[in-house]
């Protein structure tokens, strides 16, 4: 995985290009509603590995997910390197917008669209909880998180770029670390950090005693 990340760093025109954005009152309110709903209703968190089993094979077979012209076998070897397997299979606690009710989801999407430039309403979010003891290894996100539909992707390729933003939902507590690019982020509740998907290396960990709560919006921005 180290080689794969270094390759991307050198070849994907990355780096510390993220921006800190002030969120609108309506987006703030919508995010509060999401958090409150999840806590009040005790919505189940799904534990996913950062990279699923055979992720290397998947990416090798779906190279459009990355702007990448490497041989498939090389990608597979790097992503499935046994020395990183344990670290990359550590669980991440996730709730996606698909499983939340419309009355919670729609105001958040509308608020994001009012604040950012969104192509054809292509926006989703997911909520990530980093519990004490959780780690998310440094990684680049693959493209098109929000469109699992390959037909949609084909019809719209070249018309948008992938954007992503983290909105922190708690003040930083001791032991909560977030990296964006080379920077350790000193976040507060409602801080929003926006970047081009694929372009910014990031990761996080929590070796303190309080949960870290974050909402990730992913959308297409018209070119």
């Amino acid at each position, binding site marked *: 995985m180290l080689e794969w990340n270094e390759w991307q760093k050198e070849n994907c025109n990355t780096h510390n290009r993220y921006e800190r954005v002030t969120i609108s009152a309506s987006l703030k309110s919508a995010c509060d509603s999401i958090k409150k709903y999840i806590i009040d209703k005790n919505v189940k968190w799904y534990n996913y590995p950062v990279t699923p089993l055979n992720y290397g094979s998947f990416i090798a077979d779906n190279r459009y997910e990355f702007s990448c012209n490497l041989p498939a076998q090389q990608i597979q070897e790097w992503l499935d390197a046994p020395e*990183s397997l344990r*670290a*990359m299979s550590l669980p991440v606690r996730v709730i996606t917008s698909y499983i939340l009710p419309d009355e919670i989801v729609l105001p958040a999407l509308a608020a994001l669209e009012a604040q950012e430039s969104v192509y054809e309403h292509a926006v989703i979010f997911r909520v990530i909880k980093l*519990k004490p003891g959780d780690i998310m290894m*440094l990684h680049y996100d693959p493209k098109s998180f929000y469109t699992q539909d390959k037909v949609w992707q084909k019809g719209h390729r070249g018309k948008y770029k992938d954007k992503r933003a983290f909105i922190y939902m708690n003040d930083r507590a001791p032991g909560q670390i977030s990296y964006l690019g080379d920077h*350790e982020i000193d976040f507060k509740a409602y801080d929003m950090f926006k970047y081009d998907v694929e372009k910014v290396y990031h990761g*996080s*960990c929590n*070796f*303190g005693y309080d949960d870290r709560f974050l909402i990730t919006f992913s959308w297409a921005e018209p070119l």
Partner: protein
Amino acid sequence: MKKWTDFQTVFQKATNNYEHTVLDNLLRIHVDKLISYAEDNNIKFPVVPFIPEGYADELIKWNKNVSSFPINKIHAWVDDPKYKHSFSLPISVMRDTDFPSGMRQAFRLAFRRQYRVYDNNVTFRIHKLNPGDLVMLHYDPVGKFTRPGLSTKYTDKRAFLFLSDHSPGQVFYLGDDTIEYKKYDMYTFNVQELLHGSCNFGYESRYMMIITWSEPKE
């Protein structure tokens, strides 16, 4: 465990005091010899849970400061199921007894030339933080050499000596500070008085030597 840690912050008069030094040349030579020996002989890092079974009992046994405190409460705080998973995560540790006694003794002598050590009380271990490893924020319990009745004669000291340069995703907290370390940087503090923890969400292992000794009181 959160309550136990919060309790210690108040009860043990936690500070943010630590001293940064860079290892001198003589000690570097001895440390490098230890590392070479470990590499040449392919010494394994045994993987152990950070908090072993019965840890609360150990704390109560050795920590005279809490002997007057309700034992049930310490058990409840230390064994809090909410943090059981976090504290049972594995750490990889090589002990000084994995090295030949002559090599250990040479290191101790070199260390005693530089630092004030009470009664030859120096031990060390090497800690490897693999990618994906994490050590929760905690206070160390009293030093190995502490025995009731001797505390007026010395102070338990500990030092973290980094054996590799910092690389992305490696995080180390001392007190309220994130440490930007380099190879041979050493951070010294009084055992029990400084909160610390670390994690590694990068792709290179971090090697650190933990040296513990007793310093005679003035």
